[in-house]
């Protein structure tokens, strides 16, 4: 198993957000976390990336415990992250945003092993990014920012790429383009963990999915099973 999250409890300040959440992602797999806003998807992702500390439970990545590792160490082990707000550095150009990842990739496990081929991979997923290299992050559209965020995470040569709401706010044609990108990334041997609020959209990409509600996993299975489950549909409708 590539990623195993075992019974984690996470708090935001005094608020207990995640209650014994367990998920897993295997090699060459696309897994979706589906839930309404505030269900706890982003908290799960921030727990996995190390941006939020977990109070109890265990996180294993490539069979090694990473529960107490800081975010930069997790990134070096091969966890790439494209957050909901893209996370592009506004005053740096796209080339400079990518330059940092390319440089850091030499220090990641996969990059150091020569398995990265980092920036070329990023451009294979989104060739459009080549045209944007001289632009500052603050001068990109929402879709372009998301593309650059994914390309930047890819340039880190990750084993697992985490996308938080990568398709939110995009035009339908662009969403289609992003779905294709997800499939291309998977074909490169990179697993994906995708947080998505739309079950139908998630079902088109995911091999497996988890439905999150009020900080708990309420469903785990194949996308088609989720679509056929009335309880799941009711949970997601609210």
């Amino acid at each position, binding site marked *: 198993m590539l990623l195993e999250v075992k019974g984690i409890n996470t708090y935001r300040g005094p608020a207990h957000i995640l209650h014994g959440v367990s998920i897993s992602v295997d090699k060459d797999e696309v897994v979706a976390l589906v839930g309404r806003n505030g269900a706890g998807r982003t908290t799960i992702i921030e727990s996995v990336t190390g941006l939020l500390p977990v109070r109890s439970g265990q996180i294993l990545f490539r069979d090694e415990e990473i529960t107490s590792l800081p*975010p930069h160490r997790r990134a070096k082990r091969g966890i790439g992250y494209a957050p909901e707000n893209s996370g592009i550095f506004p005053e740096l150009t796209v080339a400079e945003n990518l330059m940092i990842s390319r440089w850091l990739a030499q*220090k990641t496990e996969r990059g150091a092993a020569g398995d990265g081929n980092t920036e070329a991979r990023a451009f294979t997923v989104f060739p459009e990014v080549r045209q944007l290299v001289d632009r500052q992050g603050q001068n990109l559209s929402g879709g372009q920012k998301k593309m650059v965020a994914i390309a930047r995470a890819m340039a880190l040569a990750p084993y697992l790429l985490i996308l938080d709401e990568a398709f939110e706010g995009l035009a339908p044609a662009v969403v289609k383009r992003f779905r294709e990108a997800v499939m291309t990334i998977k074909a490169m041997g990179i697993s994906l963990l995708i947080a998505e609020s739309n079950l139908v959209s998630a079902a088109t990409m995911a091999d497996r999915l988890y439905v999150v509600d009020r900080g708990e996993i309420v469903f785990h299975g194949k996308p088609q099973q989720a679509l056929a489950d009335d309880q799941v549909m009711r949970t997601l409708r609210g």
Partner: protein
Amino acid sequence: MKPDPNTPRNRSLLRLAAAMAPILLLLILLPTFVETYQIQLVTYGLIAAIAALGFNLLLGYTGLLSFGHSAYFGIGAYTVAFVVQHLGPHSMEFYILIGIPVVAIVSALFGYICVRHTRIFFGILTLAISQVVYSLVLKLYWVTGGSDGLRVPRPALLLGLLNFSGPRAFQQFITSYYYYVLAIFVVCVVLMWVVVHSPFGKALQAIRDNEVRARFLGLSIRRFRWISFLVSGTFTGLAGILWVPLNGLTTPDVLYWTFSGEIVFSALLGGFRNFTGPIVGGIVFTYLKTYAVATTEYWQLLLGVVLVTLVLVLPTGIVGGLSMLGLRLSKGRS
């Protein structure tokens, strides 16, 4: 493989070289058409520019405002004074050879403590540490000379090739030392340019812009800030090393917090969000202070008015303001 002149990094390097060439030529020719006093002032200005350049790696590129950079400047100056008193030979290269590692070690140590905090806590901590150094230098008078300070005679330059004695020794020293400082200034500018345009420099800017984003990209925030502090302190310390033979004396004044304020002022005056701003700021501040002191006994009031005007009218400093003006003019033409 030939370097591609169209990459942003190489374009930026070409722009820097094109901007520097005429200024450098002017600076090389300067001693032929100005008097010794003006050469001395420009030398002070170049030294202040090195200090501000180092300081700005921390403020402009890492987003940390230090109120204690006088400590590194002063430690550089006092190291030279101690070398003069207890070691030999009286050679500038020897002073630099001893001074830089001392300043780097002190910066590394103080930086390790300070970068554990950010914002106002970082600023206060740097200020407090510099004041501890100031108090020690002031109180340990049997070592440091207390408020009288320590004298530093004119050193030999270029491993003893240039010695200064005789009736025109002062003028000869000032002119030779000017070229000496100019050469080191050019090396410092190129070195700093390489640092801020390297992936390391971009990582510092990423940390400045958003620490959380930088963290999940794999950047160890504290380590990068510490290295930035170390480089910044060392550059400022080098300025102190170069300053003291020109001044001939070092006193605890260069360790006092108001001197840290002058370094901050220089960076603000030139503009801390661009590479050349602190260089311009360092030189302009030197002239501003010198002529303000010569003009009125209320020179601090005059500098205060300049600072307030600057913040209100030119928040991006002289260079930032000129760039904006140039941009508007070029837009107007097109």
